[in-house]
């Protein structure tokens, strides 16, 4: 297989470009999109690359259609992705819930810009953290990943596909205009060195008959993709193990929703990823995600130089969330600071996790610019 970009070597590219290349190396062969700043470059790269790797890049009439198309493509057996920003992500919410309910593996990239509404289209923000977790209606869960560098944008895109396929779930790659438009050195591995996961396919009639059941006992059913001879029934209505609508049966609804949430919750330690920096002896902790972590690392170094025992917990996964880990951290440190580019979203998760064991303080910044390290340092010093 020849790739339309260099592999097995480093390159100097934008975050958006890194996401597109990673998707192709992760086996994505179907992209449906709609233009929106600051995510358009992902689509433009896909428009160039997809014909060269025998894939599909298709422009839809809006974001609702874009996510619907990748759901369709996923049921046709393709690894599929779409990318957008806040306004488009809002339009996609109904179908994100549909993908959760129908256990359709898809990857949705949200390159955050400042909102609400049209907001500041070219500037970065982290205002969609809560929406990425809770944007769609009803009881649900999904996976949200958050890169802070262009390399992570690449790596987490591959991870997003693997998690989507492994757990038959939509995965949101939540990045921002800063990471997406920044150019950095990225190592693009050889395709042979990339571990890829593909969804479980039914091995026999019995499995194929239970596309929404639990034939393996792990809560993750095999996916009888269309065109393999099975008459699979897919619906966003409450459905039984065979996919048949059962909309007034409380037991069926409870069994279905608890399994869908359980397959993520029960495996959250496999899914959750984080990095600890100078936390061993820390007395104050910073908890951050995404681009702000870059400033937070520098802030920790400056604070250490000043003799303050600071450390950083950088969250690569935003959801599922390890509340227990935050509580342990709160038992260790006196205070936790949460710098984020919004009016306080991750802060609420951290505060819930800390469970009153340590004070949690929000360092909010809005308007489109990332916190400078000194802005974090000054708040920690007090």
């Amino acid at each position: 297989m020849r790739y339309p970009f260099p592999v097995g070597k480093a390159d100097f590219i934008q975050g958006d470009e890194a996401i597109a290349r990673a998707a192709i190396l992760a086996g994505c062969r179907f992209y449906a999109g709609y233009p929106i700043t600051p995510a358009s470059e992902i689509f433009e790269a896909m428009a160039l690359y997809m014909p060269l790797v025998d894939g599909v890049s298709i422009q839809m009439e809006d974001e609702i259609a874009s996510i619907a198309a990748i759901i369709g493509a996923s049921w046709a057996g393709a690894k599929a992705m779409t990318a957008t920003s806040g306004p488009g992500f809002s339009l996609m919410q109904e179908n994100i819930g549909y993908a959760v309910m129908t256990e359709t593996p898809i990857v949705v990239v949200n390159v955050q810009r400042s909102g609400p509404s049209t907001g500041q289209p070219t500037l970065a923000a982290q205002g969609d953290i809560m929406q990425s977790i809770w944007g769609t209606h009803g009881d649900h869960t999904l996976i949200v990943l958050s890169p802070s560098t262009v390399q992570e944008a690449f790596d987490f895109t591959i991870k997003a596909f693997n998690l989507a396929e492994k757990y038959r779930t939509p995965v949101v790659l939540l990045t921002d205009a800063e990471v997406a438009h920044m150019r950095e050195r990225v190592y693009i591995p050889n395709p042979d060195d990339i571990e890829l996961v593909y969804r479980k396919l039914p091995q026999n009639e019995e499995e194929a008959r239970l596309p929404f059941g639990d034939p393996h006992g792990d809560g993750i059913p095999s996916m009888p993709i269309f065109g393999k001879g099975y008459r699979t029934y897919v619906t966003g209505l409450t459905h039984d193990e065979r996919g048949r609508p059962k909309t007034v049966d409380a037991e069926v609804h409870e069994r279905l929703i608890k399994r869908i949430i359980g397959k993520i919750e029960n495996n959250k330690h496999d899914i959750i990823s984080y990095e600890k920096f100078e936390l061993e002896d820390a007395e104050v902790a910073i908890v951050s995600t995404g681009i702000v972590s870059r400033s937070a690392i520098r802030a920790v170094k400056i604070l250490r130089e000043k003799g303050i025992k600071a450390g950083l917990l950088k969250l690569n996964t935003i959801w599922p969330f390890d509340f227990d880990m935050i509580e342990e951290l709160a038992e260790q440190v006196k205070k936790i600071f949460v710098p984020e580019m919004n009016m306080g979203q991750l802060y609420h998760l951290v505060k819930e996790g800390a469970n009153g064991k340590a004070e949690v303080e929000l360092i909010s910044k809005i308007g489109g610019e990332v916190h400078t390290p000194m802005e974090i340092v000054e708040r920690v010093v007090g």
Partner: protein
Amino acid sequence: MAVRKPPITTREYWAPGHAACAGCGCATSLKLATKAFSEAMEEKYGDPNAFAIAHATGCMEVVSAVFPYTAWKAPWIHVAFENAAAVASGVEAAWKKIGRKGKILAIGGDGGTADIGLQALSGMLERWHNVVYLMYDNEAYMNTGIQRSSSTPYGAWTTTSPPGKYSIGEDKPKKWVALIAAAHQIPYVATASVANPFDFVRKMKKAAKVDGPAFVQVQCTCVPGWRAPPEKSIEITRLAIETGVWPLFEIENGDFFNIKIQPPGGGAKVKREGGRVVAIEFKKPIEEYLKLQGRFKHLFKRPEAIDELREQIKAMWKTLGVDVTLPKPEE
């Protein structure tokens, strides 16, 4: 000394200081459209300012909203991409209820009209709101960096329809939203061009004066998106008319049979039967239009694609009930 009356009001609604590119055809279209609208309001209601504007996200929204360098001299509501027609519907219905006289001008580009806003447009037309919807058609998503729309013509380069080994560029025929609008049997539908300002102003005034919904689709050059020299902006749109690429027509009450077709000029021979245009023999080849634009440059290495475009243009005219002959360039 006699002072000649200016051909159109000197009142400005699209104010100076906007950030559009040099040679932007769409800026010209909005300047003319609002002037025409104002004149129509004065003639119909005695108040030149009896209108409000609902504007979808798009390049003309962005360049006209860089306060304090410029501002609209009319009540103006900018709404997300898909909503201009729906918000205009709301303003109009509320105005009607409180007895306020006037009309709403909804503005959207081709992406905001032909793609994401099509549902809202159809709803607005079907509910018969007293709104004029102006679609400024620069044939791609220019604001986000030149991505194709369903109004992008066959063969055009855009960043999401890149020509290359496996692609000739945009590979589908242009979607004509004016014909979709006319299918709603609304009082007035027209296509226009910034290269023919008097015709455009007349159509905008007519649209503004009818009772009920109206739709006008105006072609306007995007200098960066079409890879066109700014000083050729009007010339290119004129060539679009003269070569048959861009038809100028009016359809009233969905009466396709009595479609009014404006003569294209450029030496074209128009044949009429009973006052109705039935055939046009164009004299200028479409290559004259294509060659001025970088977005079609690659087609000149693939003449079969230009022939395909010619066939599509013929088919489009056939939909309008006109048999056209399109010449090939002389060898």
